[in-house]
């Protein structure tokens, strides 16, 4: 009896020792040496894995930081300057941070400006609606308002405004990770420079149709008249395919185009009211020239019944 016990202990003990030796050499052979800095850097990164830096996630970004040894060309938009300083302290380099940006919504097709002419009752997904029809207002370039951008935002910075039906960006929370830009099937959202005073001038329209057709679906559409291009002293505004675009690298925020735009498609955000003109605009940048009201089409055919 004791023989059996002894034998069992011996067999198991010897095989165990054998495996231990094999495993030791295998572990030595295939050892992965990882820089402990990677763990440290990963620790201070936000850990949201938002992909705003262009890497697969925060761990991949930490690896990139450590591999490079400095912060040139790499930045974490979600972390901002606080995280940049921490990373710089670990790496022992000067903190660098890309110019802070913010998401802007380049559509002003609110329920009031672009009155819905039909009602969509299918799957509440912008990508699907985009593949099925032009949109409730008839504008094939405008916001569909079904919230793909809001669902893509991991920072709770985007939400669909119940009143306008358009996405609204919370500038405090937005880290410019670009998730909403990718989620929008119509390319309405763009990342633009935050500027020192957090001011922006941009064309809130993407409609490339000619003026008459654009106005049919939305009263605040860019009609491609080119007045803004003419008035701009800095060559920042260009009209292409019936649509104006303001290049924020050239724009000096003089707001001449805002006053000139006949439809109010150009928005100026976070500016104090213009002092000299009595009709000057408050923050939300209503057009100075009140848009001439286009004649409503009598009994616009309601595809699906008109919305209240």
């Amino acid at each position, binding site marked *: 009896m004791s023989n059996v016990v002894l034998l069992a202990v011996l067999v198991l003990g010897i095989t165990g020792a054998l495996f231990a030796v094999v495993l030791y050499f295998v572990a030595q052979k295939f050892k992965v040496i990882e820089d402990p800095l990677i763990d440290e850097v990963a620790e201070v990164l936000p850990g949201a894995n938002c992909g705003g830096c262009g890497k697969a996630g925060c761990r991949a970004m930490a690896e990139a930081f450590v591999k490079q040894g400095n912060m040139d060309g790499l930045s974490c938009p979600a972390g901002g300057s606080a995280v940049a300083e921490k990373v710089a302290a670990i790496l022992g380099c000067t903190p660098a941070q890309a110019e802070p940006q913010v998401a802007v919504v380049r559509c002003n097709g609110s329920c009031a400006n672009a009155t819905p*002419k*039909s009602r969509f*009752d*299918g*799957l509440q*997904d912008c*990508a*699907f609606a985009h*593949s*099925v*029809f*032009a*949109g*409730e207002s*008839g504008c*094939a370039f405008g916001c569909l308002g079904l919230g793909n951008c809001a669902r893509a935002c991991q920072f709770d910075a985007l939400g669909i405004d119940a009143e306008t039906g358009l996405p609204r960006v919370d500038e405090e929370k937005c880290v410019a990770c670009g998730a909403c830009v990718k989620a929008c099937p119509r390319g309405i959202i763009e990342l633009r420079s935050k500027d020192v005073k957090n001011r922006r001038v941009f064309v809130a329209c993407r409609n490339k*149709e000619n003026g008459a*057709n654009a106005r049919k679906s939305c009263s605040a559409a860019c009609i491609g008249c080119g007045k803004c291009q003419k008035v701009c002293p800095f060559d920042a505004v260009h009209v292409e395919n019936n649509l104006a675009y303001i290049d924020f690298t050239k724009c000096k925020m003089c707001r001449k185009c805002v006053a000139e735009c006949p439809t109010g498609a150009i928005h100026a955000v976070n500016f104090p009211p213009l002092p000299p003109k009595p009709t000057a605009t408050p923050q939300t940048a209503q057009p100075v020239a009140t848009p001439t009201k286009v004649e409503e089409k009598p009994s616009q*055919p*309601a*595809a*699906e*019944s008109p919305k209240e």
Partner: protein
Amino acid sequence: MKTFAMGGVHPEENKISTQAVIEDMPLPKQMIVLMNQHLGAPATPIVAKGDKVKVGQLIGRAEVPMCANVHSPVSGTVLKIDTCKDPFGVAKPAVYINVEGDEWEESIDRSADIKRTCDLTPAEVVARLKEMGIVGLGGATFPAHIKYSIPQGKKAEYLIINAVECEPYLTSDHRVMLEHAEEVCIGIEQLRKALGVPCAYIGIEANKPDCIARMREVAATFEGIVVEPLKVRYPQGAEKQLINAITGRRVPSGKLPIDVGCVVSNVGTTFAVYEALQKNKPLIENILTVTGKYLPSQHNYKVRIGTTYNDIIKHAIGELPEGTGKVISGGPMMGKAVSNLDAPTVKGASSVLVMDEKESRRAPETNCIRCGKCIGACPMGLEPYLFSAMVRNGRFEDAGQHNILDCIECGCCFFSCPANKPLLDEIRLGKNKYRGILAARKK
């Protein structure tokens, strides 16, 4: 009675416009002819502003193989060449024509007598179909000259004529068979000869006994045309299901009917083929049903292609009735809601279906209970509930592995779902996304 092997549903038939004789729709004041009325690239306009055109004159030429010629449906002056929003609001190239009189091209035979003999060779038949801009009128608007040019190494064994009309409400094919049975049979005979097959089968569902009787009576005077009554079941009119019902063959995933030796044409197309071959008339008119339970009257019209939906509705019923929920182009199962009634009709349009608010409204969605009704209803043997979950979680690649692209979008899953989940919408989204992935990979 024959039917297809797998899945299918039987929605309420609602064929309320069967007794309405085909009427001619009067010409509108202005015509908008889209250059993109078919599957493939748009035709190139060959007229300019101010040109005078006649009925049947070529105005858009097919310059690539996957394209079809477009002819003027009216006589008059070209107003402009511009874009026009289609029924779903998407801008497409179009020719606007101001209608003046009704002057036809001299080459078109407008007499009412039926011409039975035809001495065109198969190659000439295909060339004529191309010249006359014939496309499949079953809904997919596939250019006919491509369908009837059998690729090298493949052989057609069956010609199947789709007279199933399994969609509820639609009756245009029904009326064509009753009123133009002989013309349809002549068209079928020419197509059969062009393909070199011994026999053509006309599949008709058993809910149209008058059509079956009439077509049998006429087909008896022709050689090699067999009328095949089929059990009533949606989507029997889908190409793959009809092939399965009549021949028992199954088109493998990703293949075309010709890979199993079948060519399928809609009965409306055969009528257009007759007119193109025997009367030299291009595809400028189609038969359209104007129907709806709440409409004061039901109609079947012969409409010049390019008449706007508003013109059709105005002529048929005056105003849209109070409480209209949706106007649908096509049947209630596969048709699409029209969001722009100023848009013109196209070659493939088969009906204007008006639904009231109650009938058109979708029921509120609840949770999937894994009952499997959608799987039982799917005629392609797919698993719609699984696609739904995959698409909601962004797993488009997995959906592709489960053959999401085989979906024919018949809507049986959505129809049968007790939780009212928008299964078909999700599958369409998944198909789009997966196609995008495949295209990106190809690059």
